[in-house]
């Protein structure tokens, strides 16, 4: 077989535009008459809005529009769970939650208008630690409870075999807890949205996005007065095939060059407020987040607490693996329900585990919502799992390579999700890796293959 491009170095398709400065990002689009958007964010972590008066802000020359929750046609959104408000109506659940938004001629005027918005928030006791938030008497982050229910349980459960039977067979129990801190994506390009009302009644939104359709679905619902579409793909597709939803064709979403995202541009950050102000003022409205907003208030990597309890035999077989994970979602669900699913499917690692049980809980706290970042929950799982493997090896006095060869998945093995594997090359990959780093393998592991194990 001959290849046209495999094995050859090709220039990046837009690299020429990058090096000449011609690459156009959202913030590089200038439309005459564009207004600058600024947003009033909550200065408290948790509270109830008792007073919100925008009348003085509206009267400043150069201010074209000020919006509050009542101006949002449908004020609940979310990728999977509709639990977040575009502008807080009453309850504040995290510091930085948007309360009101201003569109003005200049950034100075917009900031002056923000200063003139009068508000009064009754402070409530927030909860930041997920372990505290899980206690029955903890302050409620969400009315329905501080733990996300998944299929009637307060955790996502993935299991195979009999975990207690497995622990009974073990010679040693190795239990460790791992922490993975929160992290901001920190793209060099902050969140930007430019919403342009068109003369034909449509709305063009230039946005920084990694997933146009993730956002289109949500913004259509916000602007479309809550006309509800099912949040499952299949039904959504069905809906489209019946001629499309009324609101969809009215919104023209424009993506393009993105100045770094790392998962942080899969969320609806700036678009809804820019769009609402554009519709209210009839003028193009641009909202570019400051670096401070980006660091403090944009979606971020959730902190994780992952406990591994493994039952192992003296010869290094993992006969039972129990994992309990807490995913600190912040104040809203966002991608968390999807992230814990993926985490739960992967966290036990690429190992043959006859008895495995994984429980992952999504816990709400009064912090900025978390979201997608580099691996949707797989990265912290792998971090914990592989350190646990080394700690097991240390306890047994075994070479960590050997421990992995003993337990490596082979063809015919079943995952915790009960998928039976058919094309596994973990052993061969590790052999190659050992060769690359000059790690000597004993005869047994040097000649091992991924052929199905004899039971």
């Amino acid at each position: 077989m001959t290849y046209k491009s495999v094995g050859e170095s090709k220039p990046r398709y837009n690299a020429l535009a990058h090096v000449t400065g011609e690459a156009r990002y959202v913030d590089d689009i200038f439309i005459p008459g564009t207004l600058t958007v600024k947003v009033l964010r909550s200065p408290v972590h948790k509270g109830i809005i008792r007073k919100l008066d925008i009348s003085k802000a509206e009267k400043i020359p150069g201010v074209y529009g000020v919006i509050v929750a009542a101006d949002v046609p449908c004020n609940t959104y979310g990728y999977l769970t509709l639990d977040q408000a575009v502008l807080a109506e009453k309850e504040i659940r995290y510091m930085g939650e948007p309360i009101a938004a201003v569109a003005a001629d200049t950034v100075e005027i917009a900031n002056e208008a923000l200063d003139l918005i009068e508000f009064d928030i009754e402070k409530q006791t927030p909860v930041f630690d997920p372990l505290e938030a899980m206690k029955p008497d903890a302050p409620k982050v969400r009315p329905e409870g501080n733990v996300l229910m998944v299929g009637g349980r307060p955790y996502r459960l993935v299991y195979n075999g009999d975990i207690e039977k497995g622990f009974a067979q073990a010679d040693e129990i190795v239990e460790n807890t791992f922490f993975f801190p929160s992290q901001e994506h920190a793209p060099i390009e902050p969140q930007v949205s430019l919403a342009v009302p068109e003369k034909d009644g449509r709305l063009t939104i230039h946005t920084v996005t990694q997933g146009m359709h993730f956002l289109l679905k949500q913004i259509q619902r916000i602007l479309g007065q809550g006309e509800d579409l099912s949040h499952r793909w299949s039904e959504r597709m069905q809906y489209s095939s019946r001629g499309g939803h009324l609101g969809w064709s009215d919104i023209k979403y424009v993506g393009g060059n993105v100045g770094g995202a790392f998962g942080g541009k899969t969320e609806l950050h700036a678009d809804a407020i820019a769009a609402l102000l554009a519709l209210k003022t009839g003028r193009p409205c641009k909202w570019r987040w400051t670096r401070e907003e980006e660091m403090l208030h944009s979606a971020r990597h959730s902190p994780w607490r992952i406990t591994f309890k493994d039952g192992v035999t003296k010869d290094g077989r993992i006969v039972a693996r129990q994992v309990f994970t807490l995913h600190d979602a912040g104040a809203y669900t966002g991608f968390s329900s999807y992230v814990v699913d993926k985490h739960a499917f992967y966290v036990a690692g690429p190992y043959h585990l006859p008895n495995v049980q994984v429980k992952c809980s999504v816990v709400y706290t009064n912090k900025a919502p978390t979201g997608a970042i580099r691996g949707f929950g797989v990265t912290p799982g792998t971090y914990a799992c592989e350190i646990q493997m080394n700690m097991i090896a240390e306890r047994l006095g075994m070479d960590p390579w050997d421990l992995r060869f003993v337990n490596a998945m082979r063809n015919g093995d079943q995952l915790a999700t009960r998928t039976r594997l058919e094309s596994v090359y973990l052993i061969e990959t590790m052999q190659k890796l050992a060769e690359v780093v000059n790690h000597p393998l004993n005869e047994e592991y040097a000649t091992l293959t991924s052929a199905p194990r004899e039971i």
Partner: protein
Amino acid sequence: MALLEIKVNGREYQVAVDATTSLLTVLREHLHITGPKVGCETGDCGACSVLVNGKLRRACLTNALTIQGAEVVTVEGVGGSGRLHTLQKAFYENHATQCGFCTPGMIMASKALLDENPNPTEMEIKEALSGNLCRCASYPNIITAVKSAAQKVTDGGGDR
């Protein structure tokens, strides 16, 4: 309001600015020269790096009226119409861009370095680019690109 007279990429401009207008605002919002990017507006990321009278400056922290009459070069003015500067070509060929947002600033910081020191060591390159952040972490390729451009200059085949 005051009148700022400034030369950018060889062209002369007169712009009405006030006492707080930054050079970055003048370039982007008045002149629509968008190579220099708004990354942080606090001088931390380097995405707005330009040359002012030949010296590397953060356009976001440069008050426009303090550089009255200055000559400014942005990434758009490095090569010239229809041709790439040796550094631009080196960034292109060495895969030194991923998202591309830091690239204009990286190229300007690299140009400032090669203007002063046409044959830098790897450490000197790292030091010269230490004020420019690349979140995609293209640093190894960026350093390779600067080295390759420097080599071309030393060999006599590249632009300074």
